[in-house]
Protein backbone atom coordinates (compact mmCIF):
# COMPACT_ATOMS: atom_id res chain seq x y z
CA UNK A 1 0.00 0.00 0.00
CA UNK A 2 1.43 3.42 -0.89
CA UNK A 3 1.61 5.90 1.96
CA UNK A 4 -1.30 8.34 2.01
CA UNK A 5 0.38 11.69 2.55
CA UNK A 6 -1.89 14.65 3.20
CA UNK A 7 -1.01 18.06 1.76
CA UNK A 8 -2.76 20.91 3.53
CA UNK A 9 -4.33 23.55 1.32
CA UNK A 10 -5.02 26.94 2.87
CA UNK A 11 -6.46 29.90 1.01
CA UNK A 12 -3.16 31.33 -0.25
CA UNK A 13 -1.17 28.09 -0.47
CA UNK A 14 0.72 27.96 -3.75
CA UNK A 15 3.06 24.97 -3.54
CA UNK A 16 0.41 22.34 -2.83
CA UNK A 17 0.33 21.02 -6.42
CA UNK A 18 4.12 20.89 -6.70
CA UNK A 19 4.27 19.02 -3.39
CA UNK A 20 1.62 16.50 -4.46
CA UNK A 21 3.51 15.97 -7.72
CA UNK A 22 6.78 15.30 -5.90
CA UNK A 23 5.03 12.94 -3.46
CA UNK A 24 3.54 10.97 -6.36
CA UNK A 25 7.01 10.71 -7.96
CA UNK A 26 8.22 9.23 -4.67
CA UNK A 27 5.48 6.60 -4.78
CA UNK A 28 3.01 8.09 -2.30
CA UNK A 29 -0.69 8.72 -2.74
CA UNK A 30 -1.08 12.47 -2.15
CA UNK A 31 -4.31 13.56 -0.46
CA UNK A 32 -5.43 17.17 -0.56
CA UNK A 33 -6.47 18.42 2.91
CA UNK A 34 -8.64 21.55 2.71
CA UNK A 35 -8.07 23.94 5.61
CA UNK A 36 -11.57 23.43 7.03
CA UNK A 37 -11.02 19.70 7.36
CA UNK A 38 -10.71 18.56 10.97
CA UNK A 39 -10.32 14.82 10.45
CA UNK A 40 -7.10 13.10 9.37
CA UNK A 41 -8.37 9.51 9.44
CA UNK A 42 -6.34 7.24 7.16
CA UNK A 43 -3.53 9.76 6.66
CA UNK A 44 0.04 8.47 7.21
CA UNK A 45 1.91 11.76 7.10
CA UNK A 46 1.14 15.45 6.57
CA UNK A 47 2.99 18.15 4.65
CA UNK A 48 2.20 21.84 5.11
CA UNK A 49 3.31 23.36 1.81
CA UNK A 50 4.59 26.79 0.88
CA UNK A 51 2.53 29.82 0.02
CA UNK A 52 0.92 32.71 1.85
CA UNK A 53 -1.73 31.10 4.05
CA UNK A 54 -4.56 33.56 4.73
CA UNK A 55 -2.45 36.23 3.05
CA UNK A 56 0.17 35.98 5.82
CA UNK A 57 -1.79 38.73 7.56
CA UNK A 58 -0.61 39.80 11.02
CA UNK A 59 2.43 37.45 10.95
CA UNK A 60 3.31 34.73 8.47
CA UNK A 61 1.55 31.53 9.51
CA UNK A 62 -0.30 32.81 12.56
CA UNK A 63 -3.88 32.84 11.23
CA UNK A 64 -3.38 29.36 9.77
CA UNK A 65 -2.42 28.14 13.20
CA UNK A 66 -6.04 28.47 14.37
CA UNK A 67 -7.60 26.70 11.36
CA UNK A 68 -9.46 23.39 11.91
CA UNK A 69 -6.90 21.45 9.88
CA UNK A 70 -3.90 22.73 11.87
CA UNK A 71 -5.62 21.82 15.14
CA UNK A 72 -6.09 18.32 13.69
CA UNK A 73 -2.44 18.28 12.56
CA UNK A 74 -1.37 19.24 16.10
CA UNK A 75 -3.33 16.28 17.51
CA UNK A 76 -1.86 14.04 14.80
CA UNK A 77 1.64 15.22 15.77
CA UNK A 78 1.02 14.66 19.49
CA UNK A 79 0.12 11.04 18.66
CA UNK A 80 3.45 10.66 16.88
CA UNK A 81 2.26 11.37 13.30
CA UNK A 82 4.87 12.62 10.83
CA UNK A 83 4.56 16.28 9.86
CA UNK A 84 6.79 18.35 7.56
CA UNK A 85 6.38 22.08 7.01
CA UNK A 86 8.01 23.64 3.95
CA UNK A 87 8.56 27.42 3.81
CA UNK A 88 5.18 28.91 4.82
CA UNK A 89 4.39 25.49 6.31
CA UNK A 90 7.46 25.87 8.53
CA UNK A 91 6.21 29.31 9.59
CA UNK A 92 2.82 27.79 10.48
CA UNK A 93 4.47 25.02 12.56
CA UNK A 94 6.64 27.58 14.38
CA UNK A 95 3.65 29.83 15.14
CA UNK A 96 1.74 26.78 16.40
CA UNK A 97 4.64 25.90 18.69
CA UNK A 98 5.04 22.49 17.02
CA UNK A 99 8.68 23.22 16.22
CA UNK A 100 10.95 25.56 18.22
CA UNK A 101 11.83 29.10 17.18
CA UNK A 102 10.38 31.81 14.96
CA UNK A 103 10.95 33.11 11.42
CA UNK A 104 11.72 36.83 11.24
CA UNK A 105 11.85 39.21 8.29
CA UNK A 106 14.92 38.53 6.15
CA UNK A 107 17.75 40.74 7.37
CA UNK A 108 18.00 42.48 4.03
CA UNK A 109 14.20 43.12 4.12
CA UNK A 110 13.81 41.76 0.59
CA UNK A 111 11.81 38.77 -0.54
CA UNK A 112 14.37 36.24 -1.80
CA UNK A 113 13.67 33.82 -4.63
CA UNK A 114 16.78 31.92 -5.67
CA UNK A 115 18.79 28.73 -5.20
CA UNK A 116 20.65 28.07 -1.96
CA UNK A 117 22.63 25.13 -0.62
CA UNK A 118 21.77 23.32 2.58
CA UNK A 119 23.28 20.31 4.30
CA UNK A 120 21.53 17.81 6.54
CA UNK A 121 22.96 17.70 10.06
CA UNK A 122 21.27 14.38 10.72
CA UNK A 123 20.89 11.47 8.33
CA UNK A 124 18.91 9.20 10.65
CA UNK A 125 15.54 10.98 10.75
CA UNK A 126 12.22 10.42 8.94
CA UNK A 127 13.04 13.55 6.93
CA UNK A 128 16.61 12.80 5.89
CA UNK A 129 17.22 9.03 5.95
CA UNK A 130 17.31 8.74 2.12
CA UNK A 131 19.77 11.58 1.56
CA UNK A 132 22.55 9.08 2.09
CA UNK A 133 25.54 11.29 2.91
CA UNK A 134 26.18 14.80 4.17
CA UNK A 135 26.66 16.94 1.10
CA UNK A 136 25.44 20.34 -0.11
CA UNK A 137 21.92 20.09 -1.54
CA UNK A 138 20.87 22.77 -4.03
CA UNK A 139 17.25 23.92 -3.94
CA UNK A 140 15.32 27.18 -4.13
CA UNK A 141 14.13 29.49 -1.40
CA UNK A 142 11.21 31.88 -1.92
CA UNK A 143 10.41 33.84 1.21
CA UNK A 144 10.33 37.24 2.89
CA UNK A 145 10.35 35.93 6.47
CA UNK A 146 12.95 33.19 6.67
CA UNK A 147 15.44 34.44 9.23
CA UNK A 148 15.48 31.72 11.86
CA UNK A 149 15.44 33.03 15.40
CA UNK A 150 15.47 31.47 18.86
CA UNK A 151 17.10 32.76 22.04
CA UNK A 152 20.67 31.64 22.80
CA UNK A 153 19.59 29.07 25.39
CA UNK A 154 17.15 27.47 22.93
CA UNK A 155 19.76 27.47 20.16
CA UNK A 156 22.27 25.75 22.47
CA UNK A 157 19.64 23.17 23.46
CA UNK A 158 18.77 22.52 19.80
CA UNK A 159 22.44 21.89 18.98
CA UNK A 160 22.96 19.73 22.05
CA UNK A 161 19.86 17.61 21.37
CA UNK A 162 20.59 17.23 17.66
CA UNK A 163 17.42 19.03 16.59
CA UNK A 164 19.07 21.23 13.95
CA UNK A 165 18.08 19.36 10.83
CA UNK A 166 19.45 21.55 8.02
CA UNK A 167 21.97 24.37 7.81
CA UNK A 168 22.74 26.78 5.00
CA UNK A 169 26.19 26.04 3.58
CA UNK A 170 28.36 27.35 0.74
CA UNK A 171 28.16 25.45 -2.57
CA UNK A 172 31.39 23.61 -1.64
CA UNK A 173 29.82 22.49 1.65
CA UNK A 174 31.81 24.80 3.91
CA UNK A 175 30.04 26.69 6.70
CA UNK A 176 28.07 29.86 6.01
CA UNK A 177 28.22 32.89 8.34
CA UNK A 178 26.44 31.59 11.42
CA UNK A 179 25.02 34.67 13.09
CA UNK A 180 23.96 36.90 10.21
CA UNK A 181 26.41 39.55 11.42
CA UNK A 182 27.77 40.03 7.92
CA UNK A 183 25.88 39.58 4.67
CA UNK A 184 26.59 36.12 3.26
CA UNK A 185 24.92 34.89 0.08
CA UNK A 186 25.13 31.36 1.51
CA UNK A 187 22.88 32.36 4.46
CA UNK A 188 20.86 34.99 2.62
CA UNK A 189 18.14 35.63 5.21
CA UNK A 190 20.63 35.91 8.09
CA UNK A 191 19.35 32.90 10.08
CA UNK A 192 20.98 32.36 13.47
CA UNK A 193 23.50 29.50 13.43
CA UNK A 194 22.65 29.34 9.69
CA UNK A 195 19.66 27.17 10.56
CA UNK A 196 17.52 26.26 7.55
CA UNK A 197 15.43 23.56 9.23
CA UNK A 198 14.67 22.17 12.69
CA UNK A 199 12.88 19.27 14.29
CA UNK A 200 10.79 18.93 17.46
CA UNK A 201 12.19 17.02 20.45
CA UNK A 202 10.12 13.92 19.66
CA UNK A 203 11.64 13.82 16.15
CA UNK A 204 8.32 13.52 14.26
CA UNK A 205 7.72 17.16 13.26
CA UNK A 206 10.13 19.20 11.16
CA UNK A 207 10.19 22.39 9.15
CA UNK A 208 12.55 23.95 6.62
CA UNK A 209 12.52 27.16 4.60
CA UNK A 210 13.97 25.87 1.27
CA UNK A 211 11.75 23.97 -1.17
CA UNK A 212 12.78 20.31 -1.69
CA UNK A 213 9.65 19.69 -3.79
CA UNK A 214 10.90 22.25 -6.35
CA UNK A 215 14.16 20.33 -6.70
CA UNK A 216 12.77 16.83 -7.10
CA UNK A 217 13.37 16.01 -10.76
CA UNK A 218 16.11 16.76 -13.23
CA UNK A 219 13.64 18.68 -15.42
CA UNK A 220 13.52 21.30 -12.64
CA UNK A 221 17.29 21.69 -12.65
CA UNK A 222 18.03 19.80 -9.44
CA UNK A 223 17.05 16.52 -7.85
CA UNK A 224 18.76 17.38 -4.59
CA UNK A 225 15.47 17.83 -2.73
CA UNK A 226 14.05 14.46 -3.74
CA UNK A 227 15.93 12.64 -0.97
CA UNK A 228 13.93 14.63 1.58
CA UNK A 229 10.62 13.84 -0.14
CA UNK A 230 11.52 10.15 -0.44
CA UNK A 231 12.62 9.99 3.20
CA UNK A 232 9.28 11.38 4.29
CA UNK A 233 7.29 9.05 2.05
CA UNK A 234 9.17 5.95 3.19
CA UNK A 235 8.86 6.89 6.86
CA UNK A 236 5.12 7.48 6.37
CA UNK A 237 4.83 4.10 4.65
CA UNK A 238 6.60 2.40 7.56
CA UNK A 239 4.26 4.04 10.06
CA UNK A 240 1.26 3.03 8.00
CA UNK A 241 2.43 -0.60 7.85
CA UNK A 242 3.18 -0.82 11.56
CA UNK A 243 -0.22 0.70 12.36
CA UNK A 244 -1.94 -1.86 10.12
CA UNK A 245 -0.08 -4.64 11.93
CA UNK A 246 -1.12 -3.30 15.33
CA UNK A 247 -4.72 -2.94 14.13
CA UNK A 248 -4.68 -6.47 12.67
CA UNK A 249 -3.33 -8.05 15.86
CA UNK A 250 -5.73 -6.00 18.01
CA UNK A 251 -8.63 -7.03 15.79
CA UNK A 252 -7.73 -10.71 16.10
CA UNK A 253 -6.40 -11.02 12.53
CA UNK A 254 -9.28 -9.64 10.51
Amino acid sequence: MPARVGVVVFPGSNCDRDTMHALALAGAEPVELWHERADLAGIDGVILPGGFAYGDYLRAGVIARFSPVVRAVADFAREGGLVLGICNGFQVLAEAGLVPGALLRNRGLRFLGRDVHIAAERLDTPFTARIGERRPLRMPIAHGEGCYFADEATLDALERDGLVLFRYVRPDGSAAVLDGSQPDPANPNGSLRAIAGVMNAAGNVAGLMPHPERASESLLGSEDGFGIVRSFVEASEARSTSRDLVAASAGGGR
Partner: protein
Amino acid sequence: MSSHRFAVNVTPKAGILDPQGRAVEGSLGHLGIDGVSAVRVGRRIELTVDADGAAAARAVVERLAAELLANPLIEAYFVEELGAASSATSSAKGAA
Protein backbone atom coordinates in the same frame (compact mmCIF):
# COMPACT_ATOMS: atom_id res chain seq x y z
CA MET B 1 -22.54 44.65 29.31
CA SER B 2 -20.48 47.63 28.30
CA SER B 3 -18.22 48.33 25.34
CA HIS B 4 -14.56 49.08 25.86
CA ARG B 5 -12.07 50.32 23.34
CA PHE B 6 -8.48 49.07 23.55
CA ALA B 7 -5.25 49.32 21.64
CA VAL B 8 -2.64 46.56 21.64
CA ASN B 9 0.85 47.84 20.85
CA VAL B 10 3.22 45.17 19.57
CA THR B 11 6.96 45.77 19.12
CA PRO B 12 9.98 43.52 18.53
CA LYS B 13 11.42 42.43 21.89
CA ALA B 14 14.61 44.05 23.12
CA GLY B 15 17.56 42.33 21.48
CA ILE B 16 15.56 41.07 18.48
CA LEU B 17 16.94 42.39 15.23
CA ASP B 18 14.47 44.82 13.66
CA PRO B 19 15.54 45.41 10.07
CA GLN B 20 12.56 47.72 9.46
CA GLY B 21 13.60 49.91 12.38
CA ARG B 22 17.11 49.96 11.03
CA ALA B 23 15.90 50.95 7.56
CA VAL B 24 13.88 53.82 9.04
CA GLU B 25 16.91 54.91 11.03
CA GLY B 26 19.05 54.75 7.91
CA SER B 27 16.70 57.10 6.08
CA LEU B 28 16.80 59.83 8.71
CA GLY B 29 19.98 61.32 7.31
CA HIS B 30 18.15 62.07 4.04
CA LEU B 31 15.69 64.20 6.03
CA GLY B 32 18.50 66.12 7.63
CA ILE B 33 17.50 64.79 11.06
CA ASP B 34 20.10 63.63 13.53
CA GLY B 35 20.12 62.54 17.15
CA VAL B 36 17.45 59.85 16.60
CA SER B 37 18.36 56.28 17.49
CA ALA B 38 16.94 52.92 18.61
CA VAL B 39 14.01 53.02 16.17
CA ARG B 40 11.74 50.00 16.59
CA VAL B 41 8.91 49.32 14.15
CA GLY B 42 5.87 47.47 15.48
CA ARG B 43 2.15 47.47 14.94
CA ARG B 44 -0.89 48.75 16.75
CA ILE B 45 -4.21 46.94 16.77
CA GLU B 46 -7.33 48.76 18.00
CA LEU B 47 -10.45 46.86 18.99
CA THR B 48 -13.75 47.05 20.88
CA VAL B 49 -14.76 44.45 23.46
CA ASP B 50 -18.22 43.94 24.95
CA ALA B 51 -17.91 42.58 28.47
CA ASP B 52 -19.12 42.96 32.05
CA GLY B 53 -16.87 45.79 33.11
CA ALA B 54 -13.44 47.06 32.21
CA ALA B 55 -11.50 44.33 34.06
CA ALA B 56 -13.29 41.52 32.20
CA ALA B 57 -12.78 43.33 28.89
CA ARG B 58 -9.09 43.78 29.60
CA ALA B 59 -8.73 40.06 30.40
CA VAL B 60 -10.11 39.23 26.94
CA VAL B 61 -7.67 41.61 25.27
CA GLU B 62 -4.70 40.27 27.26
CA ARG B 63 -5.52 36.74 26.12
CA LEU B 64 -5.98 37.84 22.51
CA ALA B 65 -2.67 39.71 22.63
CA ALA B 66 -0.72 36.81 24.11
CA GLU B 67 -2.19 34.10 21.88
CA LEU B 68 -2.67 35.82 18.54
CA LEU B 69 -1.61 39.44 18.17
CA ALA B 70 1.94 39.00 19.48
CA ASN B 71 4.35 36.09 19.28
CA PRO B 72 5.89 36.03 22.79
CA LEU B 73 9.11 34.52 21.43
CA ILE B 74 9.94 37.61 19.45
CA GLU B 75 7.51 40.38 20.35
CA ALA B 76 6.51 42.39 23.41
CA TYR B 77 3.12 44.06 23.76
CA PHE B 78 1.25 46.39 26.01
CA VAL B 79 -2.48 46.83 26.25
CA GLU B 80 -3.80 50.35 26.42
CA GLU B 81 -7.38 51.15 27.37
CA LEU B 82 -8.84 53.90 25.21
CA GLY B 83 -12.01 54.30 27.30
CA ALA B 84 -15.66 53.31 26.99
CA ALA B 85 -16.40 52.65 23.35
CA SER B 86 -20.15 53.21 22.99
CA SER B 87 -19.95 56.98 22.55
CA ALA B 88 -16.69 56.73 20.64
CA THR B 89 -18.18 54.30 18.11
CA SER B 90 -21.34 56.33 17.56
CA SER B 91 -19.47 59.61 17.21
CA ALA B 92 -16.99 57.92 14.89
CA LYS B 93 -19.93 56.76 12.78
CA GLY B 94 -21.37 60.23 12.79
CA ALA B 95 -18.13 61.97 12.01
CA ALA B 96 -16.78 59.54 9.46
